């Protein structure tokens, strides 16, 4: 049998050789190799460079603070008239970090919409691979919902599955190596909003099950429930614990990836770190978030 030559292998080999040459040319940590085009000429030279990890972290995670320190003002796009109109209604211009967050959420939404439309268009009786993955996610989460809430409460499945897929895509999208891409869950506002949504769903369920007056007596009537003040604090801490867990995991992973990849000059190691902190921790945290939301709802239903 003739051995088939793999063209991809050749391309990988060429990249590997180029990478080895670049690594050996780039010298030590205080010097950096500059490759590119300058004044229509190809440039390959060693330059002195100053690397400050603190500045890098500030630029990556606190872009508003970075702009304030270096006196960078965001550009105004569009006409002055629209800008004035917006300024009249919403006050001073929005900080750039918020804009980045909104853009990332928009990208996540577009990805989810595209996935939904694509899979719905190619829905088959004999499922394809992508359809199989989503059916697997849906059926396994539906199983969890019916286990915790009971058969007749299976109408909570779409909410739980949406929560899982949204958080999972949010955690995965930070691994795409495009400058400016970040996980939306890295900003505290997104997990906090999701946590508030979970608590609102929990109370809505409780009101639906027990009636509004009977439910709120738990929080305002000290005769019926002597620990009613503690219960109010407990509701607050539910939001904090469920959202800070997600936020801290994702932010800590991102900071560790940044710090370690600054130590090893972007060779191979960050790939493994992304595999762990991006894929593993991201999937686990999305799963934990949905499971906790499910148990919060289940406690109210079983009472």
């Amino acid at each position: 049998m003739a051995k088939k030559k793999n063209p991809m292998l050749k391309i990988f080999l060429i990249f590997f050789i180029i990478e080895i040459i670049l690594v050996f040319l780039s010298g030590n940590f205080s010097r950096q190799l500059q490759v590119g085009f300058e004044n229509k000429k190809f440039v390959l030279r060693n330059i002195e460079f100053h690397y400050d990890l603190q500045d890098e972290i500030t630029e990556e995670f606190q872009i508003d603070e970075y702009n304030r320190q270096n006196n960078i003002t965001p550009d105004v796009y569009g006409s002055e008239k629209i800008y004035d109109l917006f300024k009249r209604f919403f006050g001073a211009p929005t900080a750039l970090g918020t804009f980045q967050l909104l853009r990332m959420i928009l990208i996540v939404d577009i990805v989810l919409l595209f996935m939904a439309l694509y899979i719905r268009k190619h829905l088959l009786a004999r499922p394809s691979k992508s359809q199989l993955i989503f059916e697997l996610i849906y059926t396994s989460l539906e199983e969890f919902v019916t286990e915790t809430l009971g058969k007749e409460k299976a109408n909570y499945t779409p909410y739980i599955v949406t929560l899982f897929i949204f958080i999972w895509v949010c955690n995965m999208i930070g691994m795409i190596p495009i400058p400016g891409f970040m996980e939306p869950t890295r900003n505290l506002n997104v997990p906090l909003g999701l946590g508030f949504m979970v608590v609102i769903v929990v109370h809505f369920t409780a009101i639906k099950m027990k009636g509004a007056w009977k439910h709120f007596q738990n929080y305002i009537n000290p005769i019926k429930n002597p620990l009613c003040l503690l219960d109010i604090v407990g509701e607050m801490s539910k939001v904090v614990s469920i959202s800070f867990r997600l936020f801290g995991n994702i932010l800590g992973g991102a900071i560790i990836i940044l710090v370690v990849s600054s130590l090893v000059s972007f060779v191979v190691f960050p790939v493994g770190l992304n595999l762990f902190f991006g894929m593993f921790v991201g999937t686990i945290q999305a799963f934990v978030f949905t499971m906790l939301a499910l148990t919060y709802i289940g406690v109210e239903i079983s009472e």
Partner: protein
Amino acid sequence: MDLTLAQGIVKASALLGAGLCMGMGALGPGVGEGFVAGKACEGIARSPENASLITRTMLVGQAVSESTGIYSLVIALLLIFST
């Protein structure tokens, strides 16, 4: 970055506090996660046919018990970056 003496003391104590916060906050989750993993090993040894279920439950339990460590991480980051 020019700092006065008081600002320098505040910054230094914040950094020291961040290190202490992270080191002490990592103790509890480390012990807890190790405990959960050990119990899961015992469970798998007793009933190997339930290995996947036990592993899944173990991962969720570890992620929940990790949360105190994550809170200390958030507080350490606040101490480092916002003083």
